[in-house]
Every structure is written in structure tokens, then in C-alpha cells.
């Protein structure tokens, strides 16, 4: 039986698989332009605001193309789109409401298994949780009955249920840095389950979260009954933030946070000290990241475009590949690098200072406010403009 509702996960599957349908977005034009529902392939999309259906249903219905057999209706929270879908069905046009709207899209987590090298298979697993609506990536590393969670969103029950299905429990939680674009779920997980939590804020930041301190280079052994011990090395990689930390899993998989992306580096300007943090990022990339072997798999905390998702659904790259393609990694002069970073300074993420203060544990926020703060895509990479023009100019200089 066809229901009148459709879930975000199903809509994304339709788009990714190229199944034809019409995406009818009924938010106002500004909201539609600012943040769109996207998959890895293009989808026919039309924007007819819901208040046009309130005002003159016939005129609004006439604006909806009829070429597709399926219509999925989208709004901010799922209320207006349910109304519009009903108006359409009453007019004899089959339409389904996308449950929860853009709020649900912004919180949806898609778990994807990261392919491991043959020697690593069976010893452990790395699951990449893709927060499709925001371009945020979190990770669950599992060995035997134990799992480590890295950069979780607030939807903790999703990770906990998933770990449970794998027959594991989460024994540690890490953040790669104090995030500026979304709220970390790690402090609540630590508070509720008592597992050790580590994040480094870096010099000049007051961190009020109860963390279990760790040192650069420290190793963690993971894997209980039936599992194999792997090591997670903590590599301090300042730049994007002064405390940024990467985690090297099994000597091969680098959870690189916002230090190195598949297509760019983390912006070093959010602290208002682009020169100092830009220098730190340059040295991190040269001295801490570039020394790793080519076959190191970079698993970042963000991506900027749907095209970075590979056909298996994973966002990752070999370091050797990035050495050849990344303009930022190619710059060998500190001044040129800092200048390129400075040229790329752009609009910060919305409400980033409040989000940072909350993630530091300095203020508390209720769930409704948190949801509002997190609307929209991440803005954590150094700008595209930089990548396309300035960096090349800097290399050529």
C-alpha cells in the first residue's frame, strides 16, 4: 500500500539511484535558495511556496510539472508539505510528504562501511556516518565487542542502536576538534554512559567539558572478546582550530577531522587569527600529515559537494592521491600558504560562536534551539574560490 509519507532516507536513495520523481519544495524562495535537499545525482526540483497553495490552490497546482509519476513534497519541518501533498491528492495528483522536512534531512545519518585493506578486513570495521544534509561525517570504529565513536552528532541513539546491532558497545568517544558548525553529541554520551571523552580545545580556550586527557602520540587499544586489538594514535594537528586532533586507526586510516578534506583543507580563519592558525595548519600539513605513507586513507569530518561521495557511498581519499591533486598540499612556502588562506577568508558558519561556546561546555542549549542553530550546510572548508584561483596562482608564483 502506498502511504502518504516518505522518509528522507528513501528520497535520498531515489536521487542517488537516479529513480525519476519530482521534488516539490514548498518553502519560501529565500529558504529554498539557501539550503537545498541534494543527492549524488541531479533531481527535477521545483519551488512553489506553500502559501501559494493556501491562497489559490488551482493556480499553485498549475505550476507543478506533471511529467513524473511520483511527487515528493518538502518544507522546513514537514507541516506545510503535508498540507500541500493533501491539496495535490485532493486534486487527483499523487503526492507524498517528506516526513520531518529539512529538519529531518539535516539530522539524518546514513551509515556506510569503509572498505578496508585486505589485511585489515575481519580485524576491525570503520563505519562512516554521513550526515547528508549538512555534509558532516562521524565514525564508528568497531573491533570485537568494543567501539570508538568519533565526532558524533546529537543523534546518539542512532549510533548506540547501530553499535548494538554489530554486537558492540561504545567504550570511548572522541571529537577531532571543538566544532563550529554543529553541536557535538560526545559530552552527553560521556555524561550518560560514563565512557571517557577526549577533545582538545587548544591554547586560549576555556574547555569546561569533563575530558579524559590524552597526549599526542598516545595509543588506545580497542577490541574486547572475540576481537583483535588495534591502535588509534592521536596526532595533534593544529590549524583549523588550535586543538585539532587526528586519529590514526590501524596505522592506515586517518580520521583527519577538519584538517585535511578530500577536496581542500579546513579554514584557519574562524578564530580571527588567520595568520597564526594558517601557519599552524601549514606546519601540520607539512610535518604531521605529509610524512604519512601514500596508502594512508584520509577520512575527513566534512565534505562540501555531493560529488565527493564515491560510488560506494564513502567520502575518502588516499593521501598519495591528495598529494597529486591538492593545491594546498602542493604549497611548500609558509608565506604563500598563509597568503592563500588569507585570500580565502569567507563568511563564517551561522551562529558559529554560540555553537563553539556550547561545545566548549560554557553554555547549555535546549534541543529546539540546537536544531535551529544547525540548519544549513557546513562552511568549514577553506573557500572554493581559493582552490580554483588563488592557490594555483600561489603555486605558480
Amino acid at each position, binding site marked *: 500500500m502506498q502511504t502518504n509519507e516518505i522518509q528522507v532516507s528513501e528520497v535520498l536513495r531515489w536521487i542517488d539511484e537516479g529513480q525519476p520523481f519530482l521534488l516539490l519544495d514548498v518553502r*519560501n524562495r529565500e529558504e529554498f535558495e539557501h539550503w537545498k535537499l541534494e543527492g549524488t545525482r541531479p533531481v527535477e526540483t521545483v519551488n512553489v*511556496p506553500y*502559501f501559494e497553495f*493556501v491562497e*489559490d490552490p488551482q493556480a499553485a497546482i498549475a505550476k507543478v510539472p506533471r511529467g513524473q509519476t511520483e511527487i515528493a513534497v518538502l518544507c522546513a519541518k514537514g*507541516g*506545510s508539505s503535508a*498540507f500541500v501533498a493533501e491539496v495535490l491528492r485532493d486534486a487527483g495528483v499523487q503526492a507524498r510528504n517528506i516526513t520531518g522536512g529539512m529538519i529531518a534531512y539535516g539530522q539524518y545519518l546514513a551509515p556506510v562501511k569503509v572498505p578496508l585493506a585486505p589485511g585489515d578486513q575481519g580485524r576491525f570495521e570503520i563505519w562512516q556516518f554521513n550526515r547528508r544534509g549538512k555534509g558532516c561525517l562521524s565514525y564508528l570504529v568497531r573491533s570485537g565487542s568494543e567501539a570508538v565513536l568519533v565526532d558524533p552528532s546529537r543523534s546518539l541513539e542512532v549510533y548506540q542502536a547501530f553499535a548494538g546491532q554489530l554486537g558492540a558497545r561504545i567504550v570511548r568517544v572522541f571529537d577531532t576538534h571543538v566544532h563550529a558548525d554543529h553541536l557535538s553529541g560526545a559530552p552527553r554520551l560521556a555524561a550518560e554512559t560514563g565512557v571517557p571523552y577526549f577533545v582538545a580545545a587548544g591554547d586560549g580556550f576555556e574547555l569546561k567539558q569533563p575530558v579524559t586527557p590524552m597526549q599526542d602520540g598516545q595509543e588506545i587499544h580497542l577490541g574486547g572478546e572475540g576481537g583483535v586489538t588495534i591502535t588509534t594514535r592521536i596526532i595533534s594537528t593544529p590549524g583549523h582550530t588550535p586543538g585539532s586532533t587526528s586519529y590514526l586507526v590501524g596505522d592506515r586510516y586517518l580520521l583527519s577531522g577538519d584538517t585535511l578534506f578530500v577536496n581542500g583543507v579546513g579554514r584557519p580563519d574562524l578564530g580571527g587569527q588567520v595568520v597564526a592558525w594558517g601557519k599552524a595548519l601549514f606546519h601540520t600539513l607539512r610535518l604531521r600529515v605529509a610524512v604519512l605513507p601514500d596508502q594512508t586513507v584520509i577520512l575527513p569530518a566534512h565534505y562540501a559537494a555531493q560529488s565527493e561521495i564515491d560510488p560506494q557511498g564513502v567520502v575518502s581519499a588516499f593521501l598519495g592521491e591528495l598529494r597529486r591533486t591538492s593545491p594546498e598540499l602542493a604549497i611548500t612556502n609558509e608565506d604563500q600558504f598563509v597568503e592563500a588562506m588569507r585570500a580565502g577568508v569567507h563568511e563564517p558558519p551561522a551562529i558559529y560562536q554560540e555553537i563553539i561556546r556550547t561545545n566548549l561546555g560554557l553554555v547549555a542549549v535546549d534541543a529546539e534551539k540546537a536544531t535551529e542553530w544547525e540548519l544549513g550546510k557546513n562552511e568549514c572548508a577553506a573557500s572554493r574560490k581559493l582552490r580554483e584561483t588563488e592557490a594555483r596562482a600561489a603555486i605558480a608564483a
Partner: protein
Amino acid sequence: MMHKLDARGLKCPLPIVKAKKQIETLAAGDTLEVHATDAGSVKDFQGWVAVNKQASLRQQRTEKDESGREIYVHLLEKVA
């Protein structure tokens, strides 16, 4: 005449559905002050009056209600 519509706590599309219904009952020159709690209502009311022939938007402002909630106030005037 000045009229009020308490749309606090209502989710979209209800504030606009109710405002439209009430505007239709008013006489030209009457005003309707809508109190809503959804931040998205600001752009939505702007967009709605652009397609509505009967109402114009005289003012939009924010204030706090007695429980400290942020209220989005939309002052509409019946024009025809």
C-alpha cells in the same frame, strides 16, 4: 477596527491559513495583528501578501511574550 490573531505555537501552514480566513471577514482598512512563534513566518508572510490581493503587510516586528518566548508580529491591513 483592529483585530488580533494568536497563532503562537501553531506550525506552518496554520498561521497563514488562519490569517487568510480572518482577513476575508474584515472590512477594508481594518487591521489584523498576527502573533506567531515560528521564525520562518517572517518570510512566509512577506511571500503570502505578494500573492494575496486582500491584505498588505504594514509592519513586522519581534517581541517577547510573558513566558519569554520570541514572538514574530505581523501587522496586516485589509486593502480590498
